[in-house]
């Protein structure tokens, strides 16, 4: 369980980082941020990058700021930054609630928000958050900067729209309305394990009815996404058991379940049904 040989580069500026990345991208060069996913898979030799571009010394990437519309999260912002609310907004409360479900405390102290998105594990809480809230990804390379919408970003299991020479420098999450409700639920067998299914929901109540419903499901398919069928089952309805059950059924029926040794398709659908309903119930709690 020793990684294959690699060269570690430690740039101090974003420009240096992008320059090195462009040079090593062709040789399976990777960004090293918190290393909580990459380093274990290197130890198993499932990944053998010849170069690591360690961004932990890069100035400016630890930016975490709100401009009144979006929350910008830089590439060096750790999960633990969200242990307490980072802004006076419902979004911050949501992030704090979700953050405590991520793995274990030592992992949250090292792992990064953007790193989690770039790694794109289907069960990642932050990937689910980004997909549900339609985050905008800021990808930078020596070729320039581009924005990628969350729905275009996640391409499959540990696959994203990032090019080899691109750094996910920042993620922007839209702030939530002051009356926004949110709910989150994830299922795993042991505390801190990867979610076998997770759901994040947000909505508002307008005239006693659900409006602007977002239902995101993670850990169930190759990538997290919003389930429009479940959202349709909520919008315009009274927030009650009937609507929540209907949304949960819709999500369960809609997903294309990932299968593994502890989760066959039927069981994954069971879990999706349970997590969506419980996330909705949590939103009312």
């Amino acid at each position, binding site marked *: *369980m*020793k990684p*294959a*040989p690699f060269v570690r580069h430690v740039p101090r500026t974003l420009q240096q980082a992008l320059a090195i990345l462009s040079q090593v991208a062709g040789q399976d060069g990777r960004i090293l941020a918190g290393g909580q996913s990459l380093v274990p898979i290197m130890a*198993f*030799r499932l990944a053998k990058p010849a170069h690591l571009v360690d961004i932990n010394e890069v100035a400016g990437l630890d930016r975490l700021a709100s401009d009144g519309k979006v929350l910008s999260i830089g590439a060096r912002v750790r999960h633990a930054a969200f242990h307490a609310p980072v802004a006076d907004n419902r979004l911050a409360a949501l992030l704090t609630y979700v953050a405590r479900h991520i793995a274990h405390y030592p992992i949250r102290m090292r792992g990064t928000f953007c790193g989690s998105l770039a790694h794109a594990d289907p069960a990642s809480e932050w990937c689910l958050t980004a997909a549900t809230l339609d985050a905008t990804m800021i990808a930078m390379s020596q070729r320039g900067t581009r924005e990628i919408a969350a729905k275009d970003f996640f391409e499959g299991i540990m696959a994203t729209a990032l090019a080899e020479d691109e750094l996910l420098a920042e993620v922007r999450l839209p702030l939530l309305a002051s009356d926004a409700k949110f709910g989150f639920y994830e*299922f795993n*067998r*042991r*505390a*801190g*394990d*990867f979610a076998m299914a997770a759901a994040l929901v947000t909505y508002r109540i307008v005239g006693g009815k659900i409006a602007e419903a977002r239902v995101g499901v993670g850990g169930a398919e190759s990538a997290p996404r919003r389930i429009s069928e479940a959202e349709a089952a909520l919008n315009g309805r009274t927030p009650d058991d009937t609507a929540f059950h209907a949304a949960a059924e819709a999500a369960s029926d809609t997903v294309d379940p990932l299968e*593994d*040794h*502890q*989760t*066959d398709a*039927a*069981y994954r659908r*069971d*879990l999706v*049904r*349970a997590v969506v309903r419980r996330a909705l119930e949590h939103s009312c709690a």
Partner: protein
Amino acid sequence: MSAHETRGSTGAGLKWVGRAIRRLEDPALVTGQGHFTADLAATHWVRFVRSPNAAGKIESIKAPDGALVITAADLTSVKKITPMLHKFNYRPVAQSILADGVVRYVGEAIAAVVASSEEDAEDTADLVEVNISESAPLVDARDALAPGAPQIHAEAPGNVILKGEIKTAGFDDVWASAAKIVRIDARSHRQNATPMEARAAHAAYDKASGRVTLTCTTQMPHLMRTAIADLLGMRESDLRVIAPDVGGGFGQKMSLCAEYVLLVWLACKLKSSVAWTEDRRENLIASFHSRDQYITLEGAFDANAKLIALRADVVSNVGAYSCFPTTSGVEPLMAMAEMPGPYDVQQYQCLARGVLTNTCTMAAYRGVSRPIITFTLERLMDKAAKAFALDPVDIRRRNLIDKFPYTSATGLIYDEATYRQTLEMAVHEIDLPAFRAQQKEARKQGHYLGIGFATFSERTGYGSPAFAARGMAITPGWETVHVSVDPSGFVEARIGSSPHGQGLRTTLAQIIADELGIPPDLIKVVHGDTDTAPYGWGTFASRSLVISGGATLIAARKVRAKLIKIASHMLEAAESDIVLEDGQAKIAGTDRSVTVAAMAREIYTQTHRFKGELEPGLSESGTYDPPGTFSNACHVAIVQLDPETGFVKVERYLVAEDAGRIINPMIADGQVHGGIAQGIGNALLEEIVYDYDGGVLTANLADYMPPTAHEMPHVELHHMETPSTQSITKAKGLGEGGTIGAPAAVLNAINDALTPFNVEIDIIPATPQRIRAALRKAEQAAKKTA
């Protein structure tokens, strides 16, 4: 039943035995001062190239230029590991140290790469090209038993490595007279003992003496020496084996691993030091596995719900090779011998087969078969209770053994125990009526609670005859202990057991302390080095406190007798007037005394004063080989089951147990707690999963899931002490009970919670997916009927 003691008498007043003193071994361990195998520096490091295929022929092995890569072709002078059993139609099969032309499981070592660092060895191992022509593997024991299945070893036709059969006289008539037959088809999936420290070895050649010192993480250093010397054709005196601090064994480290043999061979070849540290992935795929069994168990009951006959069919998947020294009989034969458990049943039929497959070799793991047979038998009792419309407690009351000594249908003699009393104690402490009321109320709220009982016997501290009964070529029964007092009065006990977490340095010191009248922290227990410890069998099978403890007591009594004689000379008093206490020999009723240190100095340095009546020196030896004694317990689990996700949370866990005299209650409780953690892992979480190609899908600790602190309930312990008549310290073993009882209690609790759904689950681990599958099936059937 005789009176239960909390503290008895061994002759001296018991000042230390029975006290929860802190463990003498802990200060070093908790301050980072322990010595582990992987701490040692080495000149050479080994990385094993392991088979990616479960079955096939090795066509070629190509090493990178300049690399030192050892293969079977280099090991022609090394014998194959061929464990032997002289009974039960055992077919000896041989295992090469490195795969010799054929691979039989994923993870089997094919080549050993030697380099100057661990990193270099792993890099080079990546470059070794192995070409295997694959064949279809057999992963499941039932597939391996099917007619026409490929032969894994030519020596074992039908892939059956051993077949045990028993049928009591008169079985058929009693069976035919039954009022009800109750049946269970139980499945236990494969598990790994998962010690915190995986395997590791360091072998160093000494050019001056020509000896090799093997430091390794093992439970049985002397047997490692014997086995490795045999295989390599060495004199045993040329091999020294050291078990330093060992980070958990749980049975996984009581078998000989081929890797250690290779390390010693390499040290001799290179005339240097060479080390190997197993990584977690290797441990999960290629160390030893266990618990992979199918058991069909049928119970014949009379009209009063009394069990009158038991019939069992045990199919144990023993993997690709047989383990040394226990052989692959360890699980199936344990299942056959102990299936009737704590119940009075005199008619018994059993067929127990060990079946070879293309999977990692099975070996002992804490509890050995008994977690499985107890889960099976306890589920059977709950099913029978249901069939007779009885409470689970009532059916146990009707069937538990309560007359002692009791001779089982398989001929085991049960010494006095408290099967019924611990059951009643548990029922009282858990407050069963209150729970039933709570359960009823919770169901109305959509919360499904369940309670499960497990009553069981735990055979411990058995000596050579028990192993001889299995026909083992090696019968690791007795233990020897040397207790000596040096000229400064310092006491040292050298033991053949090899503790690795059991706290023997403390408990044996407590036993000696009471005999010699000195405090335990002045007594040093030395173990784990074949150069300094007497030949012994190590630590496994809940044996050490009983057997090594007994040998310690025998040796300490001899030292005590000699101290009294010395004191009698020095104080010029009658031996009967001498008492040993506070580090002194005193003349009772006077203020005259002499210290142990002064007596020791005298017997070494002033021998002439004893006028030839006493031998010089102060060193005695004790050997003990007991018949075995049964501990017992009742475990109770209360679980909450989430019917939507299949998730099970253990809400409450209670144990009423009796392990005879308790030497150190804190250490005893720790054994039970740790055992329950592994038992809950067995019940709910831990499973080695093979795919159809024989690949392991659970090769890291995210996929193979031992419980964490979060999954562990608080454990409430209640004790009884029935001093054993079969153990001279009156102590019984208790290393495995926690593991044995927990799967049964948890599975019975799950099934109790599932009662409203009319669903049962008889599989361990009872994973959420399996529970949901059973519920879904019932839901779909209900829909169809509707």
